[in-house]
């Protein structure tokens, strides 16, 4: 986190990332041959968590994306933030995020998976809030944290329950025990919990709104986290657990419906934006919806479509985000209406934009085209609701075409930019190398799809389907329904693009009356939580001591009385001891004195009465054979009365109004009487119960012969229970010091 050496941070991170990428590429051969790399070390065996990593086909797909895109993004960042003081901090965070993400997709222990899941949440929180002095960035960071963090908590419970049912914490073993999971009573609950986790992370409806807000992050961060990697964590989870939890109607319908809603809604929202970055953000949400939609079915071709589209999307979306970053960097704006004709001033960026945009639109010969064809093929192959899904895919794709065209044509090909054109320069090499490679990858793999299919997609697909499968991709597969749909898509997309101003106006009109959005709901619930918190806290913690005490004594009376009544405490009055007449007299006196203390408005009278009560207690002690206690009580009473009389002269008179109002008086009186009744009753009941005197008998026997003292009470104090006395002496000494400190140590000016 050093500020001083951003370069060092960058270089170390970059080198590590390159090394990791190289290592993953080196593993491709082994993994695609079906040999997963496994690494296991114990961590906390008691809780079932171990450092278990497993690099199989699915993990490999993600790892390659994460590490290679990570390298490119870090490179890009070094240019983008070349002179920014916090570049080093950002690079470290990006690297930390990359590690967390890699851990997430390779973890073979569900708790370890969760650990990394949360780490990605935290690192992304810090990244979204990178521009932390901007209030909007802070708000977006909190939103991302609360939504994904909350989802993470729910996910944890789901994972724990799944592990409980399957009897294993290993992901690979859990995945293999799908039958047990699906037939269990709690299957629906587990599914719901895990889906909440996945949906929040991958910005599925109704949790989708945090992702566009997270665009408060710098462009490279958005490119990396919010398009290429982190949001795919939820997709990874769905793909990973597809064999364990999928294949049921619940799974299918939940994923299809939520995926479809997300995709369609997000593409509508994308059309509506004028900020290029937000536009891309919404298409990302759309893409995530599509992925979810296709993971709903366990049909092979649907899963294949999902896996392929995952790659397609990572390539073009990351490139486009970085392109937008470049545009912003060069022109200082991302408003589509203020930009145009950038081809001439930003030729390389424009080239990248065209390549990536065409892949996004699904034009041949880009990989995007294959992805789109597969989507239609997959949609039509799904047994459940083929047309509905195809329609959703069609709508989403068409709008994607419109967005892609808008970016390519509006920004780069046609029109003129409204900003000062003289100052616009092409970005430095570090900022176009990354996106160029990504865009080129989209083209190259489109032309030669088989390489990708064999080594990357096929092993991943095998893991999702949990069976061996061969994948063959090709650009051209004859004239068929998907191709027809593609044509329709392009047609609709073009129309939408041409009429974009109209579409945007209509959408805005429509959405301005739309009552509920996720963002508003989120904000309202936060505000309401805060209001509730204030109301509850002010209610409980009112600042009034008498209210506090009233509550405490009420709790005391009510709970003790309730237990007393429900447990029907018996009282046996057969063995009462005699009442000495003197004791009776003293008791009557004390009762009278107590009443005087309670009601007397005169302070002097109260003190006298208090003294009488104290002395009465002393006399009672004396009557029942406690001479030491009686003397002590008398001495203490005397000292106390002297003290209180001295102090009281300085204090104000009783003001009256001690129990304000008739209600307050009655309430206080009933609580007081209740306390009296309760304590009296318990005292009588305990007094009547037989007492085991063996300890006292031991003291009586041992006092003289073993402790050499005839005064048993004193022997108890200084020998049998001397530790009590030690503590008590400490109390007296500290009480004195406390009193001295209280009156002598006066407040200082706050040392700050």
């Amino acid at each position: 986190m050093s500020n001083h050496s951003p370069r060092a941070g960058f270089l170390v991170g970059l080198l590590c990332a390159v090394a990791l990428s190289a290592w993953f590429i080196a593993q491709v051969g082994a993994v695609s041959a079906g040999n997963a790399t496994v690494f296991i070390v114990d961590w906390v065996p008691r809780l079932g968590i171990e450092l278990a990593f497993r690099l199989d086909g699915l993990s490999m797909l993600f790892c390659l994306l994460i590490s290679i895109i990570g390298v490119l993004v870090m490179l890009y960042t070094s240019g983008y933030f070349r002179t920014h003081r916090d570049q080093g901090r950002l690079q470290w965070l990006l690297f930390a995020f990359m590690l967390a993400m890699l851990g997430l997709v390779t973890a073979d222990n569900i708790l370890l998976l969760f650990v990394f899941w949360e780490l990605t949440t935290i690192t992304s929180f810090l990244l979204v809030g990178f521009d932390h002095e901007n209030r909007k960035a802070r708000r977006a960071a909190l939103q991302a944290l609360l939504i994904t963090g909350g989802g993470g908590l729910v996910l944890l419970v789901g994972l724990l329950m799944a592990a409980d049912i399957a009897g294993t914490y290993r992901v690979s073993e859990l995945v293999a025990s799908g039958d047990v999971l699906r037939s269990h009573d709690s299957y629906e609950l587990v599914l719901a919990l895990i889906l909440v986790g996945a949906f929040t992370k991958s910005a599925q409806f109704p949790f989708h709104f945090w992702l566009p807000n997270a665009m408060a992050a710098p462009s490279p961060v958005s490119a990396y986290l919010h398009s290429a990697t982190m949001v795919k964590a939820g997709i990874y989870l769905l793909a990973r657990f597809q064999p364990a939890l999928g294949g049921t109607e619940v799974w299918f319908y939940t994923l299809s419906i939520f995926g479809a809603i997300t995709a369609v809604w997000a593409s509508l929202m994308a059309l509506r934006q004028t900020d290029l970055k937000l536009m891309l953000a919404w298409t990302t949400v759309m893409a995530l919806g599509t992925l979810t939609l296709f993971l709903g079915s366990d049909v092979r071709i649907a899963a294949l479509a999902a896996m392929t589209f995952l790659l397609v999307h990572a390539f073009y979306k990351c490139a486009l985000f970085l392109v937008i970053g470049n545009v912003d960097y060069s022109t200082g704006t991302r408003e589509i209406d203020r930009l145009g004709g950038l081809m001439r001033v930003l030729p390389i960026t424009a080239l990248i934009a065209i390549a990536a945009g065409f892949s996004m639109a699904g034009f041949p010969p880009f990989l995007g085209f294959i992805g789109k064809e597969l989507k239609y093929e997959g949609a039509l192959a799904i047994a459940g609701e083929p047309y509905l899904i195809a329609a959703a895919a069609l709508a989403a794709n068409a709008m994607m075409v419109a967005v892609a065209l808008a970016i390519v044509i509006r920004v780069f090909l046609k029109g003129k930019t409204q900003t000062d054109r003289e100052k616009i320069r092409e970005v430095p090499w570090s900022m176009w190398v990354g996106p160029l490679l990504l865009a080129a990858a989209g083209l190259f793999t489109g032309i030669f799809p088989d390489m990708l299919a064999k080594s990357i997609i096929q092993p991943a697909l095998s893991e999702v389907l949990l069976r061996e499968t061969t994948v063959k991709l090709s650009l051209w597969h004859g004239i068929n329904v998907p191709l027809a749909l593609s044509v329709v898509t392009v047609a609709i997309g073009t129309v939408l693009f041409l009429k974009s101003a109209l579409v945007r106006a209509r959408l805005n009109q429509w959405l301005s009356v739309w009552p509920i959005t996720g963002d508003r709901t989120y904000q309202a619930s936060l505000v309401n939580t805060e209001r509730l918190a204030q109301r509850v806290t002010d209610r409980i913690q009112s600042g009034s001591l008498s209210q506090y005490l009233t509550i405490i004594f009420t709790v005391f009376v009510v709970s003790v009385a309730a237990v007393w009544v429900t447990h029907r405490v018996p009282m046996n009055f057969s063995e009462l001891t005699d009442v000495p007449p003197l004791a009776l007299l003293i008791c009557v006196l004390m009762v009278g004195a107590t009443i005087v203390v309670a009601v007397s408005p005169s302070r002097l009278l109260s003190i006298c009465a208090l003294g009488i009560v104290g002395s009465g207690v002393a006399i009672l002690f004396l009557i029942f054979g406690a001479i030491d206690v009686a003397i002590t009580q008398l001495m203490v009473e005397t000292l106390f009365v002297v003290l209180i009389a001295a102090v009281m002269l300085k204090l104000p008179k009783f003001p009256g109004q001690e129990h304000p109002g008739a209600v307050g008086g009655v309430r206080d009186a009933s609580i007081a009487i209740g306390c009296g009744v309760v304590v009296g009753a318990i005292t009588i009941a305990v007094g009547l119960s037989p007492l085991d005197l063996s300890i006292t008998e031991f003291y009586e026997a041992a006092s003289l012969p073993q402790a050499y003292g005839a005064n048993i009470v004193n022997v108890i104090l200084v020998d049998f229970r001397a530790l009590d006395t030690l503590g008590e002496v400490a109390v007296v000494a500290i009480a004195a010091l406390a009193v001295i400190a209280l009156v002598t140590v006066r407040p200082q000016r706050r040392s700050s």
Partner: protein
Amino acid sequence: MEVLFGILAGVLMAGGVWLILSRNLLKFLFGLVLISNVANLVIFASGGVTEGSPPLVGKSGIVEGVANSLPQALVLTAIVIGFGLVSFTLTLALRAWQSIGTTHVEEMCLSEQRAGATDENGGVLSVDDYAQLERARTVNSEQSMEPGR
């Protein structure tokens, strides 16, 4: 005698709680003294109340018919501790009066006043924030959020 002790404890307790619930710090103190006496009486009564001689071992070394010594020791300890605590509280009341200027507990709410001023530009989720957000929504123009070059 057990019943009498119980009634006495009950009365003292009721009087004590009544005083404790009053809004005057000095009366609170009186109440505290009363319920401390209740605690001592309860311990004493729990140890069995029979008239007996003090628990002293006679010359003969035989102990016969003496009162239960253990609760006496406990009560003695409790009395001395109670004295320390009550004296402290008395001084505290005095200092509170000298410093705050009241012994009426309802008027002593200094420590729990909310610092009312919420920050104009800092609140994470203050009510203002929401209103601002709503306004921003109607304008629907997103400014550049990049930290710049």
